[in-house]
């Protein structure tokens, strides 16, 4: 059986990292931005574990454990903050937060509006459950 060579792992790590970075820069939804930042970290974790396997030691795994811990702390702070921001503006759109900027600079307004929120399909209505209807005793056919 051929072992998978190192550069395959590194390619996957790089792709994950790049996707995360692109999403981080391009998205406007706060939560999605943070998911993308986490995705960058996953790319890093793949890199580290691949290198550790290549070199036959466990340093990469140890490194990864620490990264996961720190990422969890960061996510905790970020999500708490996002919750606070959502309560104050009622939206997760990051472009609503532009009060702090250089003097004389106009806020960046996106020409393209966000897609309209999808109307939720009403849940199918079931007939309300009541007492079990009275069954006529059927005569046995046997």
């Amino acid at each position, binding site marked *: 059986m051929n072992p998978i060579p190192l550069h395959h792992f590194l390619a996957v790590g790089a792709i994950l990292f790049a996707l995360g970075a692109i999403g981080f820069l391009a998205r406007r939804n706060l939560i999605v931005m943070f998911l993308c*930042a986490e995705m960058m970290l996953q790319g890093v974790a793949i*890199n580290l574990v691949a290198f550790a396997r290549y070199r036959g030691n466990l340093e990469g795994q140890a490194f990864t454990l620490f990264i996961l811990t720190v990422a969890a702390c*960061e996510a905790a702070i970020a999500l708490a*903050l996002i919750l606070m921001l959502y309560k104050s503006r009622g939206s997760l759109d990051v472009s609503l*937060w532009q009060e702090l900027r250089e003097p004389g600079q106009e806020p960046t307004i996106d020409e393209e509006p966000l897609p309209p929120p999808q109307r939720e399909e009403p849940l199918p209505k079931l007939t309300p459950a009541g007492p079990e209807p009275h069954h006529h005793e059927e005569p046995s056919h046997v």
Partner: protein
Amino acid sequence: MFLKTAIDTLQDSVPRDCGAFLPELVLCTGIVVLLLLRLFSAFDRWHLGWLALGFTGIALAAAYDQWFGGIDWIPTPEQFRAEAGSADLFSRMLVYDYFTVFLRLFLLTFALLIIWLSLLTGIPDREDSADFYTLILGATVGMSVMASTNHLLMMFIGIEMASLPSYALAGYLKGRRQSSEAALKYVVYGGGAAGVMLYGISLLAGRFGTAYLPELGAAYVASVGQGAAGFDPILLLGTLFVMIGIGFKLAAVPFHFWCPDVFEGASAEVAGFLSVASKGAALALLARVALALGGIRTLTTGAPPVMNPMVHYLVPTLAVFAILTATFGNLAAFYQNNLKRLLAYSTIAHAGYMMMGLATLRGEGVRAVLFYLIAYLLMNLGAFAIVAFLRNQTGSEDLADYRGLVRRSPWMVITLCIFLLSLLGVPPLAGFVAKFQIFAALLKGAQDYATAAPTLSTWLIVTLVLGGINSVVSAVYYVKVMKTMILDERVEDVEGKEPVRLREPVPSVAFAVVLAGAVAVFLAFWSPLQKAGDQVAPLVKQSDRIAKGSQP
């Protein structure tokens, strides 16, 4: 068998290492105690700032003892090295030398001052005091780890330990939208920068199979020493990404964009904390990494010069970033009309000056930076403290509301002027002494490199000239603030209201006057600080050995 030896070594080393790590351990105890007290409703009526002050004081005393020696079970770096055989702590994760202890003293003194300041301005009220001081102490522990890092993993953890509390501190004024926005921007940019830096770390650690900084430095030298044949895109990309992470913490141009927004949105106390402590720790980290990679060598003493090939790349890179940072900070500060934002750009510019010192990659440069950090602590903390005091009275940080303030609040305005003049670098104030040291180090570096590497010498001379021009340019905005406060008509006269003299509480005035006095007589501490800088020299010698490829 292997496990048994490992455990034995651990049993030997951990108690000794804990003595060297004592200040941080004291701070950690402080954090736990503060959090536990939060559980009891009886303590809700207490302002826990005094407790935080006490723990920081004990930690500072421990660090003081580490520098001067005295108590047996707290080793000085020298004793530690004699006993353990190396300066490494906790299986090579941290390093314990005079540079570490110097930065600890710096950070703990600053934490003490900032807690005192927060007690005076009353930014955390009684109920929230436990949270606020937990965050301050936690960030201080992280910064101190950053300053003593010896391993890429600890570099990342230190940066995160310092950053996470800072994010929460930036958003501490919960009611204010601007504060939330500042925290949001800080978290978003910080998270992105951490991801990028980690990718760089994974590339470097994977490429060389080690994340231990001295070994990494030797590996760099071996790789770069081969010339064009040794060109390695992974190496380049990894270094670039790690530098982005450090540059972000340092708010070096072009990774500075978070800094003005965060400073404007956060309260002035927090902005002061971030501007001094965070920047000091980031500079210390940059110094460690740059010295580990670039390795200073003494060109002067008799031995035939062995040029570390990394020097040819690191000196121009650091010089370019330093020039960019200083110039951009000074130019952008000119257009600001919010005092905190103006001070944020001034902070960026000062980080640029300090990076100029590091760009020499020599002992003199590092010593000048340590010198600069002390002066910078005094004057920048002073400036932010006055902004906080005046905010408590006028409720505003806009420059427009500072018009003619000298007639309403003379003590505050005059001390603020001293701090601004010092930031500008007017002799004989602290800022002048510090800048003088940096420029002298640049000149000395240029002379020393002159024979072995004329190009580097030119780079340093260019940096020196541009640094001088920058100092002059910065006069424009500092003087503008002073003119607004002293010469302009009072706001009340313009608006036709009755001018009210502002209250100047005695403790606040005392705080400002003590700092201003320290800034004024800083010149007197020249030689003791110089001596302290010389004591940091073992760091320089150590990296010297590494540069030559021998084992530390």
